[in-house]
């Protein structure tokens, strides 16, 4: 089954009217989409808006998604289009943002946006990466191998069982224990 199998299950649920299942797709793909969109849209707040818009559009178009392609391929396409359209709209309406600045408190908004790009906030992604790397470092060998084969190499449980010469149930449990160990630290960081 793999990753696409999980997506297919969720997509099917959304198509049957289960909105909550869509939240799970958002949680799953938001970082990838924000990263992708940020390649086009420099401004961080705008990038988040475009990312949000991408998910809204995806939700609306989901009744037509027939699963011919992977869900992420489809979502990727929507994100690119949304980002490009945003750029077109921006270039089309230069006067609007000028007016905005004149009417609002001059400079206030800009300084707030600048705050977002201070070196301090740059730490966040790095902090997460570091924490996870450290946690993985400290895992027992079998857990570390299992999680790496799954996340980095993208192998199915069956393949991992072959590689590690153990039952599939053991693979499932090792991967879970690895995630639990990493999660322990990640949770501490986020809280």
């Amino acid at each position, binding site marked *: 089954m793999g990753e696409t199998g999980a997506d297919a299950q969720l997509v099917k649920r959304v198509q049957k009217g289960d909105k909550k299942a869509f939240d799970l797709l958002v949680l799953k793909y938001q970082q990838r989409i924000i990263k992708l969109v940020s390649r086009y849209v420099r401004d961080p707040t705008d990038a988040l808006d475009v990312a949000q818009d991408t998910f809204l559009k995806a939700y*609306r178009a989901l009744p037509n998604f027939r699963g011919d392609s992977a869900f992420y391929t489809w979502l990727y*396409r929507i994100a690119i289009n949304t980002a490009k359209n945003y750029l077109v709209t921006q270039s089309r309406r230069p006067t609007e943002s000028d007016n905005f600045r004149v009417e609002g408190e001059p400079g206030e908004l800009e300084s707030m946006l600048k705050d977002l790009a201070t070196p301090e906030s740059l730490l*966040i992604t790095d902090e997460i990466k570091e924490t996870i790397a450290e946690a993985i470092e400290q895992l027992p060998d079998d857990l570390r191998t299992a999680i790496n084969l799954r996340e980095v190499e993208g192998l199915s449980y069956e393949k991992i069982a072959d590689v590690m010469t153990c039952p599939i149930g053991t693979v499932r449990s090792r991967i879970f224990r690895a995630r639990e160990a990493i999660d322990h630290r990640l949770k501490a960081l986020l*809280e």
Partner: protein
Amino acid sequence: MKPSREIGAFRSLAPCFLILTLSATLVSAADTSGQARAILAKMAKATRANNYDGTFVSIRGADTASMRIIHKADSRGEHERLIALTGTAKEVIRRNDEVICIFPNERSVMVEKTPQQAFFGTAWSQPIEQVAVLYDFSVLGGDRIAGRPAWVLGIQPKDADRYSYRLWVDTSSSLLLKSQVLDGGGSILEQLLFTALETPAVIPESALQASISGEGYTWYRNETPQASGERNARWEVGWLPRGFAMTEQQMHDMPKDKKAVKHKVFSDGLATVSVFIEKNKEQAVPVQGYSAFGALNTYSTLADGYQITVVGEVPAATVRQIAVSVSAAAP
């Protein structure tokens, strides 16, 4: 996930945007919005549930035409007759979902069953609050149309991607007396105007009989639905104005060459936009650029050997922007 410092900063921006947008809209007729929407809901109901007999003029682009409408509602449902007063004497008789159209010049009669939905659109079947996110509703004042006092209602879009509407609704019967579709500059694109309207308690069946027997006419009937051929959603509409969602998707065969055409319908609750996608034959003359008639705009373009055409009661810039955003989906 608990918000990090970064997220906190993003969130702190939100109220500031909110205040900016609110202060702009608060002043504008927020007080009559609820009233306007209540009148519109009553209008939609009265149109179906009341008896009426009226004459109206329709103006669209350079065309002007006049017709009479007789509508009866009783325990058996709706019964309606429309008669053209200008040009050829076309007639339409509708009994609930069954529609008969008579074209005397062509000596033709058409019969069709139509889904109830098609009559009253999708607009008021969805919560009007959803539409109110995109349009400002207001009561603009009072007027007199066809000798009847009327409310004047305004439906003003909150962005430039769609048109605005003005409706005159009879204060006593709640029936529509006049309507206009306007562009951003306030120019009238389409207009409908009743010159006479009565609401009789009883309408005799004879008033709803067609004046033509249909004998010796050619009768046409819609064929049974054909299964749509291509099911793959290969095309994506990358940009739509805010609030537009897909309401329908169909496959058609074009009448001349039976080529399959993909037809997607999008609506914001009031305005409707269609996107047509069709493989362009080499010998066919491609349609390109703008066309317009009344409030209806179209824009056509070619993409990857396909003819993309967007048709809708929205400004030309909007149909164009939608058309150029259509692209083949990733395989």
